C-alpha cells in the first residue's frame, strides 16, 4: 500500500467517524430529546422532569398580568412565561400559573412554592441579595398620561403650566421627588391605587397622571379618545424575573432563553406581545457585532 492510499484509508475512517458523530449530535440536539446536562439538584432538572413550569404572577395589572374578556390570563409577564415553556418543552401551554399578592413575590421563590416569579418586578440591589435575577426583559419608565380633551396635552404644555399643573401619582416613598424631577413646580396628589390615580385624570381633578410607561402605552393604544401620551418618559427601572439563589444552571437557562427571545432567532412571541401590549414595534435588531 502506497503512502497516499494509506492516508485515503485513514481519511475514510475519519470521515465515517465524523459523519457518525455528526448524526449522533444532530439527534441529541433536537429539543425534545435533549436532556439537560445539569446538576442533580438544579430546578432546571426538576422542571423538565415535572413536565410543566410553575410561575408565580398576578392577575390584576394590565398590560403585565391580567384576565382578558374570556377570563384567560394574559399580558407581557405571561408571555415571558410562555417563552420559557416553549424553550423547555416546545409547548408554550405547559405552564401552571400561581396567583400571588405582590408581597409574595420573593417569599414564594425562597420557599420553593413557585419555580420563577414573573410579576413586573423592579430589579434592585436589596432584592438581588434575596433572589437571583436573570437578564432584564423590559426597561420601565415613568410617563405622564394626559387627557386628549384637556388643556394640557403634551409635556411642553404641562411644563408651561408651572405651579398650576396638577399631577397624580401612586402613593410611594419618593413619589413627590419623582414628579418634581421633571416638573419642579407641579402640585402632586398621592393616591392609593393605580386605578384611582388614572380616575383622577378622567375626573378632571388632575392634568396628568404619572404612571408606568407601559401603562401609558397600553391605555393609549386601547383608548386613544380617552387617553393621550404626553410624550416624555424618565427614570428607568429594569424589570426582571426572580429565581432562587444558588442554582446557576437554572439562572443561566432563563437568561439565555430570554436573550434568544429578545435578540436571537426566536423572537416571534416577544415581538407580537410587545406590539399588542405596548402598541409599538420592537426596534430593528443589528447583526454582526453583538449589541445587547
Amino acid at each position, binding site marked *: 500500500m502506497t503512502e497516499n492510499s494509506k492516508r485515503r484509508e485513514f481519511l475514510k475512517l475519519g470521515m465515517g467517524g465524523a459523519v457518525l458523530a455528526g448524526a449522533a449530535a444532530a439527534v441529541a440536539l433536537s429539543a425534545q430529546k435533549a436532556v439537560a446536562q445539569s446538576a442533580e439538584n438544579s430546578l432546571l432538572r426538576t422542571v423538565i422532569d415535572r413536565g410543566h413550569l410553575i410561575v408565580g404572577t398576578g*392577575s*390584576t*395589572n*394590565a398590560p403585565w398580568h*391580567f*384576565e*382578558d374578556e374570556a*377570563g384567560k390570563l394574559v399580558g407581557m409577564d405571561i408571555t415571558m412565561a410562555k417563552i420559557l415553556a416553549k424553550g423547555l418543552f416546545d409547548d408554550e401551554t405547559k405552564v401552571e400559573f*400561581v*396567583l*400571588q*399578592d405582590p*408581597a*409574595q413575590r420573593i*417569599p414564594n421563590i425562597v*420557599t420553593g412554592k413557585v419555580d420563577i416569579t414573573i410579576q413586573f418586578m423592579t430589579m434592585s440591589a436589596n432584592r438581588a441579595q434575596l433572589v437571583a435575577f436573570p437578564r432584564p426583559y423590559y426597561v420601565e419608565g415613568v410617563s405622564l398620561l394626559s387627557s386628549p380633551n384637556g388643556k394640557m396635552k403634551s409635556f411642553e404644555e404641562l411644563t408651561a403650566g408651572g405651579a398650576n399643573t396638577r399631577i397624580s401619582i401612586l402613593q410611594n416613598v419618593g413619589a413627590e421627588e419623582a414628579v418634581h424631577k421633571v416638573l419642579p413646580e407641579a402640585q402632586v396628589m398621592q393616591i392609593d*391605587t393605580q*386605578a*384611582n390615580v*388614572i*380616575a383622577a385624570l378622567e375626573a378632571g381633578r388632575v392634568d396628568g397622571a404619572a404612571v408606568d410607561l407601559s401603562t401609558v402605552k397600553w*391605555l393609549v393604544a386601547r383608548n386613544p379618545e380617552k387617553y393621550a401620551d404626553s410624550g416624555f418618559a424618565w427614570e428607568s427601572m429594569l424589570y426582571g424575573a426572580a429565581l432562587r439563589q444558588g442554582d446557576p444552571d437554572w439562572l443561566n437557562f432563563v437568561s439565555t432563553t430570554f436573550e434568544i427571545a429578545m435578540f436571537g432567532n426566536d423572537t416571534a412571541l416577544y415581538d407580537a406581545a410587545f406590539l399588542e401590549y405596548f402598541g409599538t414595534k420592537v426596534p430593528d435588531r443589528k447583526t454582526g457585532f453583538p449589541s445587547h
Partner: protein
Amino acid sequence: MAQLIDAIVYAIPYLMSGLGMTLLVSLIVVVLSLVAGVVLGVGLIYGPLSLRWLIRLLTDSIRGIPILVLIFAVYYGLPPLGLNLSSFWAAVLALTLFKTAQVIEYTRGAVSSIPRGQMEAAKSIGLIFGQRLRYVIFPQATRRFLPPWVNGVTDAVKGSALVSLLGVVDLMQAINQVIGRTYEPMPLYLLGAVMYFAINYSLSSLSRVLERRYAYIKE
C-alpha cells in the same frame, strides 16, 4: 349615569365566581370555627385543669397574632413541618383558627353567664353531663351567644377578602382583576360594596329572626 350602569352590568359575570369563592370560604370558616369553638369552649369551662390551661394558651396566642401574620405563618410556616397546604386551604385554616379563638370566647361568656343553680338543678334530677348541656345549658346560652356570634359571621365574610393575599380569587380579587383590565374603579367598588352589603344584610336579618326566637327567656 348610563355609563355607570353599563360598566356595572358588564362586570357582573366576572364577579360571579369570585362571589362564589367568597361565600364558600366564609361558609367553611364559619361552620368549622363554630364546631371547634363550641367544643373547645365547653372544654374551657368544664374540662380538667390541664385541658383548660391548654385551651387558654391556644386562644390567647391566636388572638394576639394579627390575622395577616397568621395567614402567612400558616402558608409558609407549615411546609417545613411537613404539612403542605394549597393557598385555599392555608387561607381557610388561618381564618378558621382566628375565628375559633373568638367563638371559644363567645361560648365561655354565654355559658358562664348562666347561674350555677341551673347546672345543680339539672344534676339533681339525674341528667348526665351531655344531657345537662343539651337540654338545660345550651338552650339558655344560645340567646347570649347569638348576638356576638352573628357579628362575628359578618366579620368573617368581610375578612374572607384576606384570602386574596395568598392569590385565591375571591370577590375582592375578582373586582381588582376587572379594574386591572378596564381601569374604571368606581363602578366596580360600588358593585362590590353592594354585593358585600347584600350578603351581610341577609345575615343580620337572619340574626334578628334568631334573636327574637330566643327572646322569651327572661333574664
